[in-house]
């Protein structure tokens, strides 16, 4: 891959997040972390756009914007 990897934009709606840890635990690349009571992005470079966090978030708080 000579092209530079296109990074997604992970949108976290903090107002909706209840801090259940599901996204943090089930991310295969450990992209997310808990910052206080809400999830936040720790390492966007590692994201493989698998969408697991968006799929599993029970609170509609995560959107992964990727092409």
């Amino acid at each position: 891959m000579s092209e530079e990897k296109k990074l997604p934009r992970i949108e976290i709606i903090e107002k909706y997040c209840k801090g259940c840890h599901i996204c943090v635990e089930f991310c295969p690349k450990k992209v997310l972390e808990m910052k206080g009571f809400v999830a936040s992005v720790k390492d966007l470079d590692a994201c493989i756009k698998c969408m697991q966090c968006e799929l599993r978030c029970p609170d509609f708080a995560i959107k992964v914007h990727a092409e």
Partner: protein
Amino acid sequence: MAFDYDKYIRPGKLPHIWCPGCGHGIIMKGLIRAMDTLNLKKEETAIVSGIGCASRLPGYIDCCTLHTAHGRAAAFATGVKMARPEMNVILVGGDGDGTAIGGNHFIHACRRNINMTYIIMNNNIYGMTGGQFSPCTPTGAKASTTPYGNPDPAFDVAKLAIGAGATFVARGTAYHANQIDKLITEAIQHKGFSVVEILDDCPTTYGRRNKFKSVIEMMNRLKDVAVPVKAAEKMSAEQLEGKILTGVLHKVERPEYTEEYAKVIERAGGKK
């Protein structure tokens, strides 16, 4: 691209009332994806529920919705379907609402084979009212009303539905999130009464009393106990001990109730 759930959600309704880590939100997302896959029109879709945590779901989805008396979702939904057979009728509810208070309505809706889809979110407990044991609470498990362990054996919702005559029965879990929409899609497409039982977690009233340290532990339990039906065919009885089968468990064809009832009206000389 991110899935646009917002177009199916009533504006200003989020965040929902469910506790942190409750799987009901995951199931609601699955239902929304299934509605999107099937391109169901909002005005031609009715979501009916009874009372309970799971039954709060219709309040969030922007389509025709009906929030009814405890356990009576199947009764009200039958009325909707009989009056407007062209509507897509989806029932949602919990295990207590569906199999205890609404157990009677549930088995008779199965028996009639009326073309509706019932999504039962089985979290093994009455969550909203304070963690009383439900017919789906496993033997030995603790609830607020069984502090020394539940002596009752639990219902197998899928087997109950098959026994009562439902023509499509499937089971999924809140852990297997990408399977939920596929099961619901297939259930809605099926002509006849379809039941989708989705095993769920209740960290607040079930998990804390039953030594689950976290939501993640409860989710991992769902992952561990679930065995797809195809994989189960190659497994021995000992290997299947304590496991729960997931996937499409039962699918048969049988005359559908609204069509049969239309024939009755015709025979009686009424208008078609």
